[in-house]
Every structure is written in structure tokens, then in C-alpha cells.
């Protein structure tokens, strides 16, 4: 006997699902996505096409005020600031995203292994991770850059080292919860090979958690890169990153405050958007019923 919906039930269509999803995302996160998207788009255009000017050409006096040739004025070497700003954004974003992707991959792998096998394996992994975790973040970053020499690779490696402990813990806990569920146990009993279990049964169920953690890791990454470059251990001149630009801005702040404020504002906006999106992702992927005390 076929079940046809009664005339009173609307079929929940695919359109409902996508637009419903967009509508369910709260206004703040929507705004954040748009702003962030615009920023990234502008940066990509600026860096790939150089339409805002060259980042190395000297076009005027030092610390000149905004003019048609240099919409944000010039920096300490007479270069137009606007293209350097975009280069800074690009460097910061690229470094952070690359680092978080590596970190997420590594954390997911070892977190799943620790969570699935438990016991001694889990203890060993967590001990090693704990050693990394015991280092204060910035100190670890500085150490890494002292080891590898300052620059982009150092920034990337330090971010990876800092974010792995956090993500691994969460992945391990999430894996443990999923691994106890019947569909995984039954797969193991029926002889499904472990890598397949990992890929087909565990991974899809923890993917949401990983994405949420990765988004928070991204905001941490940008902060770390900023701090590292600010202290002089990260990206070096003549390259640009937001942290470096802020440091240079600080030196010039008495006569050209915009050189400090603009990159600072961009940095805050970028991190804020990522955090708001991460919050919203978390609410959606790990929804929490709200109750009140009345």
C-alpha cells in the first residue's frame, strides 16, 4: 500500500531546505559571510590584477596623505599603501588557511586513531599532544621561528603546532562517541577494513565538529600570525602581512595614524566575521535546544 501525503501536508521540497537553511542562519552570521566574502574577493582581485597599484614602486614622498594616485597615502618608503594593504591581507589569509588545513588534516587523523583505538594508543597520542599544549602559544611560535628562521614557513609551522592539540582533543572525544554507536560496531564485527570504517562511517559523522573547530582555529591562526609578525618573528619586510603592517603603523602613528588604524580595523573585522560564522556553524551543526528558567 503506497503512502501518499494527505492534502494537508506540504512536501518539504529541496527549495525549502536550501532557502530554509539560509533563513535559519541568523542575521549576524549572514552579514559576516557577506562582509568576509567581499573582503576576500577584493583581495584576490587586487593581488591578481594589480589594479590598485604596485606594491613595490615608490610613487611619492614618505607618509604622504591620501591622493588620487595613492588612495590611502604612502608608507615609510613612499609606496602606495592600498596595494600593500591587500598584499598584507592576502599573506595573512593564505598563511592562516594553509596552516589550518594542515592542522585539521593531522588532528583529524590522529584524533580519530586515538578515539577509535582508545587505551594505550590514546594515552600516548594525548601525552604527546599535551606536551605541545603545555607551551604558551606565542612562546611556542617564537621558538619555532627562532628554529626555522623568521618568515612564512615559520608562521605556518607555529600555527600548526599551536592548533593541533586543541583540535585533536575535540576530534578524539567526538570519535569516541561515534565509535560506540551500533553502526560502527556492526561494521567492525562484519569485518569491514579499518580504513574504510574511518572514511565511510566515522569521518562523515565528525565532519561537522571538525569544520566548527577549524573555523575557530582559523581565527586563532590569524591572531598568532599577527602577533608573531608584530614582534618581528614572522613575515619579514619587504613582504607584508597584517601584523607587520600594524607594527609599522605603530611606529608612524603620531603623524600617519591611518597606517595603524586601517590594517587594525581590517584585522578585527576579518577575525570577527570568522568567529561569528564559526558560532553560527556550531549552532547549526551541533544544535542546542534552548530552555529558559520560567
Amino acid at each position, binding site marked *: 500500500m503506497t503512502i501518499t501525503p494527505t492534502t494537508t501536508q506540504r512536501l518539504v521540497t529541496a527549495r525549502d531546505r536550501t532557502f530554509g537553511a539560509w533563513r535559519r542562519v541568523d542575521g549576524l552570521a549572514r552579514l559576516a559571510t557577506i562582509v568576509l566574502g567581499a573582503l576576500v574577493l577584493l583581495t584576490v582581485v587586487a593581488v591578481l590584477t594589480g589594479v590598485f597599484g604596485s606594491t613595490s614602486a615608490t610613487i611619492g614622498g614618505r607618509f604622504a596623505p591620501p591622493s588620487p594616485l595613492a588612495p590611502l597615502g604612502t608608507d615609510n618608503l613612499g609606496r602606495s599603501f592600498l596595494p600593500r594593504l591587500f598584499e598584507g591581507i592576502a599573506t595573512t589569509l593564505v598563511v592562516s588557511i594553509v596552516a589550518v588545513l594542515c592542522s585539521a588534516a593531522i588532528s583529524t587523523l590522529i584524533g580519530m586513531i586515538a578515539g577509535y583505538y582508545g587505551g594505550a594508543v590514546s594515552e600516548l597520542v594525548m601525552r604527546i599532544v599535551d606536551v605541545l599544549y603545555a607551551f604558551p602559544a606565542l612562546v611556542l611560535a*617564537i621558538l619555532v621561528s627562532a628554529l626555522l*628562521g623568521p618568515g612564512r614557513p615559520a608562521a605556518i609551522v607555529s600555527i600548526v603546532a599551536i592548533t593541533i592539540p586543541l583540535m585533536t582533543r575535540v576530534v578524539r572525544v567526538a570519535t569516541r562517541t561515534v565509535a560506540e554507536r551500533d553502526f560502527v560496531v556492526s561494521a567492525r564485527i562484519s569485518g569491514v577494513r579499518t580504513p574504510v570504517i574511518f572514511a565511510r562511517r566515522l569521518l562523515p559523522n565528525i565532519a561537522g565538529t571538525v569544520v566548527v573547530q577549524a573555523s575557530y582555529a582559523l*581565527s586563532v591562526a590569524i591572531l598568532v600570525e599577527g*602577533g608573531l609578525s608584530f614582534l618581528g618573528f614572522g613575515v619579514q619586510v619587504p613582504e607584508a602581512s597584517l601584523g607587520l603592517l600594524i607594527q609599522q*603603523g605603530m611606529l608612524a602613528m603620531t603623524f600617519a595614524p591611518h597606517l595603524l588604524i586601517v590594517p587594525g580595523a581590517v584585522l578585527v573585522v576579518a577575525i570577527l566575521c570568522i568567529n561569528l560564522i564559526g558560532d553560527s556553524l556550531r549552532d547549526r551543526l551541533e544544535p542546542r535546544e534552548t530552555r529558559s528558567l520560567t
Partner: protein
Amino acid sequence: MIVVLWSIRRVLAALVTLAGVSVLIFASVRLMPGDYTDLVLGPLATEAQRALAVAASGLDLPIPEQYLRWIGGVLTGDLGYSFVSNVSVTEEFAARLPVTATIAALTVVVTLLVGIPLGFVSALRAEGSAGAVGRFVSALGISVPEFLLAGLLVFAVSTLGLGISVGQYSSFAEDPGRFFGSLVLPIVVLSVGCVAVVARNTRDAVLNVLVEPHVQASVARGETPMFIIRHHVLRNAAVPILTIVGALVAVLLGGTVIVEFVFNVPGMGSYLQTALGRRDYNIIQNAVLLAAAVFIVTALVVDLVSNAIDPRLRLTGGSRR
């Protein structure tokens, strides 16, 4: 009995981690590029002078022996001498540690006094426009990096006056007023980030408790919100909040490096930074070890206290999940 066994296990684990950290620090410091004799003696030093310098600081001994000498020194309280300036590291630590400790302690106090109530309020008014404002502000709080805030404050203070002086540090013994005055800005900068983190995590912890069936059962019995918070929510939310205090210490340890740099305060953070620039092994090793030790001890204390509060942890041997 289980409690005691579990506690001992935890302490041992902490010691193992600390040992691991010390090895890692030692190795990474030794691997740093740059011949220290160049830095200390200059590139024009003769072979003989270099050999003398190396022997004097024990750098010619085999690596494992160097490690053991260092650890031995740490355990007996002798932290050696700075390679560059030949000042006793122990003395320097003793002078600078109180400064950083004061900043950290006062920041923690402010953070707990402001952050936890803020988190509670935010959780209890979690929906609607108030909720959105709360979420925005809390996201903003963790989005402003300390170095930026520090820089902006320096800018604001130097251009607008405001009567607070930057970089006018004097030690507590000489002038307590100036001592605390010079710490105000660093504490403010650190507190902003820390309050935001604590408020966020408190809010999460409380929201998680509000959904638990026993809280709903209490609502169904007609208890007032104040009653429920006082008797049920506080204790159940205490453990997650306590965990955050542990993370707070980690954040602070890094943050002090930056604020001491920007505001020119002679504490442990700035000491470490200059030492890194000069490849002064001894200082770097000991400072980082100290920082890691502080964090590990804090985490241990948090764990032990959590255990005492939440009886479920005792039974399962430490893991609530």
C-alpha cells in the same frame, strides 16, 4: 581510595609531560641556528677566545650531559648564568617574576569578577535581540588581538594625554604608586581578551546546564530562577568554568610577552623576548620551562578541584564523557 589513586596518576602524568617539555625545549634551543660565540664575542674573536668561552659555559660537553646539568641546576635552584651578560639567571628571575606575576594575578581577578557574571547574564538572556547583541559583543572581545589593542591604547594615551604615563615603570620597592600605575594599561589590555573568553565559555557552560533534565525537573516543580541557579546551576556549571581558568593561564602567559613589549615593562615576557633575539640559551630554556610548568601545574590543580566538585568524575576515573 579511587580518588587517591586517580590523583596520583594525574600528578605522575603531569610530571611526565613536564619532563617531555623540558626535553623539547632543550632540543629546540640547541638546534637554533646562529653561532652564539659570534653573537656574544663578535665575529672578530679568535679561536682561542671562542674555545675559552665555550668551555666556560659548558657548551663543549656532550649534549645529554648538558641536559642533565641543566635539569640538576633547576632542581637545586641554580639556573646558571646568562651567556651574554653573565648575570645570574636566578637573580633576574627573582627580580622580574613578581612583575609579571602581579600583572597576571590582577588580570585573573578582574577577569573572574567581570567575566563570570557577564557569562551568566548572557546565558540567562540568550534569545532575541539581547542575545544577538551579547553574541556580537562576545565575538568582538575575542577578535581584537592584544597587540592591536595595546598599540591603540598607546596611541590614544600619547595623543590624548589622559594622565596615564606609558613606560614610566619603577619597581615596587621604590615607588608603589608608579609601579601599579605602570601596570594599569597592560592589565586593561589583557583583561579585555580574557574577559571575553571567560564570558563566552561561562555562557556555554550555563546554557548546557540549563538544558539538562534535572534543571527542567526543577522548573516543573515551580522553583524560582534564583533558587535553581543557586542550588543547581552553579555547581553543575562550575567544572567547565574551572577548565577555562586553566586555558586563561595559557593565554596570559603568551599575552604578557606582548604587553610587556609594548608598554615597556621589565617582566619575564620582555626578558624572554630579548633573550631570544640574542640566542641566550640559558635564559630561554629556563623561562620557557617555567612558563610550561606554571601551565601544567594550573591544569593539574584545575583537574583535582574539578574532581572534588563533580562526584561523577571520581567514579569514572576522570572523564565525564
